[in-house]
């Protein structure tokens, strides 16, 4: 039976006078891969940051596996998070950084080391294990964050544009891991701008625009919403976010320049 992994009700987040997320509500159940889509600045990252406790909302209710986010430690213990902008502790090496996160998560050395060996080998990070994070490429930094998110086998994965910067091999492995995680009964929320990936991977998507959910459901549900029988997720996305209308004119104007 599917359990509620994430419950968000009437979430509002402000930056000064600007409302980044406006009365947002959605739920994610176990076994689901929920894609959070939206144009730049729509409020995806803000929503995910609230979910992992990095940002404080102005209003709304957030629960992780029925644990209110106010119970920070209990809620965060169940999450693995890959941020959009990978800013880790740059002066540490991946080994030292993972040692730190494992300490905070109170992980058992024997259990974590066998998993760590498999993950570093899968993402080909072993050779960089003692190199300061500051000296790593963007892709390798991303791999460190991904390993840190998976290391403790969390029930909920929150991935903010996790494929950015990854090579084809690592990208494929991560996608497989996401699918496997959901099949095992875990839950995944991830944001992406790559519509093809979202279409293939997600069991449900939520399209967010100007801080509000403007469309939600399976790709089939969304097709019905926009009354298009064959449109791709990209077409649906552009329609739902009302970006399609003027787009052809803009392209035409650029071509005529």
């Amino acid at each position, binding site marked *: 039976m599917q359990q509620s992994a994430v419950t968000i009700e009437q979430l509002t987040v*402000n*930056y*000064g*006078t*600007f409302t980044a997320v406006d009365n947002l509500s959605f739920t994610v159940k176990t076994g689901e891969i929920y894609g959070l889509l939206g144009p730049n600045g729509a409020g995806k990252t803000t929503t995910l*940051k609230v979910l*992992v*406790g*990095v*940002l*404080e909302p102005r209003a709304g209710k957030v629960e992780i596996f029925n644990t209110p986010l106010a119970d*920070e*430690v*209990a*809620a*965060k*213990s169940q*999450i693995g*998070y890959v*941020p959009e*902008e*990978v*800013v*880790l*502790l*740059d*002066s*540490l*090496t991946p*080994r*030292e950084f*993972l*040692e*730190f*996160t*494992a*300490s*905070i*998560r*109170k*992980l*058992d*050395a024997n259990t*974590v*080391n066998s998993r*760590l*060996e498999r993950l*570093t*080998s899968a993402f080909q990070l*072993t*050779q*960089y*294990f*003692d*190199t*300061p994070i*500051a*000296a790593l490429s963007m892709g390798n930094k991303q791999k460190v*964050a991904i390993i840190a998110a998976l290391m403790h086998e969390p029930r909920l994965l929150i991935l903010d544009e996790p494929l950015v910067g990854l090579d084809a091999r690592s990208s494929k492995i991560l996608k497989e891991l996401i699918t496997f995680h959901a099949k095992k009964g875990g839950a995944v929320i991830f944001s992406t701008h790559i519509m093809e990936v979202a279409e293939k991977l997600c069991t449900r998507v939520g399209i967010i625009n100007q801080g509000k959910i403007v469309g939600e459901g399976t790709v089939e549900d969304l097709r019905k919403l926009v009354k298009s029988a064959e449109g791709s997720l990209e077409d649906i996305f552009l329609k739902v976010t009302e970006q399609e209308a003027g787009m052809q004119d803009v392209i035409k104007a650029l071509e005529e320049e």
Partner: protein
Amino acid sequence: MNFREIWHITGTVYREVSFQSIFSLRAGSTLPQKGRGSIEQLVKSAQINIIISKILTAVFVGTFGFITFLPLMEQTFYTGPPKDLALVGSVSAFLASVLFLIVFMGLQVTTSFVSSKIADTLSPLPLSKRDISSIIFLCFVRIFDAPLAVAAITLVTVYFLVGGSILGGLVSFAAVIATECFALTFTVGLARFFYARVTAGGGRSKLKTLMRFVFMLVWILPTLGAYLLVNFATYIVESFAVFTQSLSSFSNLVVLAYPFSYGFLVSFTTFGVNDYLVLGGSVAASIGYLFAAFFSLRWLTRTIRTIGSGGIASTQREKVKDTIIHPQIPWLGIIRKDLRIASRAPSYASLFFLPIIQTAILAVTFSSIGDAGPALSFGILTGASMMVLLLPTTMFSIEGLGSAYTRSLPLKKNTLITAKATLSTLVYAVSLVALFLVALYLGRDFTYILIFGGIYAMSIAAASMLELVILSRKYWKEGMAMGNLYSRLSTFILILLPGYVVAWIPIIAAFTAYATAPTLVEVVFPSVVMIEFLIMTIVVLREK
């Protein structure tokens, strides 16, 4: 591109470095979460912070200049060493202070200069390599403009105030310019070595760990030098003069050493020549140092570009044998992380060592009085507490690094507070060990101070806990973004003050007992300390 255009671009780049010096290092990536008005206010605060830092160094340089020349300004009742030797001492001490203070300031800002990678931003723009080099070099110099200008003006001014000659004034000016070139070169040289050899290439081998430790010591030398010079200014001038006098038979050699060669040359151009061999030596050495300054400046302009591009980090890697990690209990994990970060960040490293050095210096200074009784012991402990209690804020600011990620970890407030308070107390404990070693070396009886000092560790822990509770309550929700704390001196003081009050309550209580009923000191002091510790432990345990 003409100078005006380059200067204009430098202004923008300089503002960016100023900004990053606070926010990219201390606030992690929490900045985009703030409102526009708030960000604008923080940018302004960052600029003010940089200006204050420059002014403080400039004031130190200026004040030290006047203090070192003060005895020579006394015309009627002068009782010190011969004036020509005193002038050698004053000029040499001033030049050494400029060197240390500029290097001290430089080492604190170089980290942000390196991390800003300004050349990476400038390179894609239609600017020639020469223009980019000029912009980066001018930007680097602008960080130091006020202290550099004040140093030059101060030396020339005080020199004329003690009745110097025109030629002596010119020599003084040349000496201070050469010193400034050396100081900037020394800063960049140390930074280059640090980033290329110490921080790069990982850090698992014992050799790398040892190198980092050694370099932490090297890094604090300018801090220590600046500290000694500022605290013992007049004493140092006299020592310089006495030292020079005692080495009169070796003055032919001393005169070749920087900064004495300039000291001797200024003295000769003021009071006349009494030894032509020494004059010859000082002239030759001074010209040699001027050439060295010129070449160091050329090296500096070439090197600074590599630093600005962040291209000095070596790509060498150690061969990785395994991927085994050793997780600790959370608070120990935080301590280990903090020590690792501090060993690679000079500004943190120097702060960790300062309390230990300061305690040793206090002990040496006070030991001239005799064995340390209760009153003297409490005096030394007060001094030690002042330095140690600067640590919790610094250590809390480490949490700002990468906070956009680390905030997502299941970390309890009380775990964080316990870790940082333990580390502060540990630094204090190491200070006590330093004190013990000084006592052993001097053959003094420091029993009181060691017993009271040991008990006082609980008060230091309580004061640290209080500072950390205030800090975490204030900054926990905003991702421990401490940039705004450093740019608001009043907030910083309001966090330090309660800590100092907690640390000083047992001292005041003990002093009061000592004055009224001395036998009660041994009861009052530990009791107050223990009560403080218990109260703060309960408060921390309640922080979730």
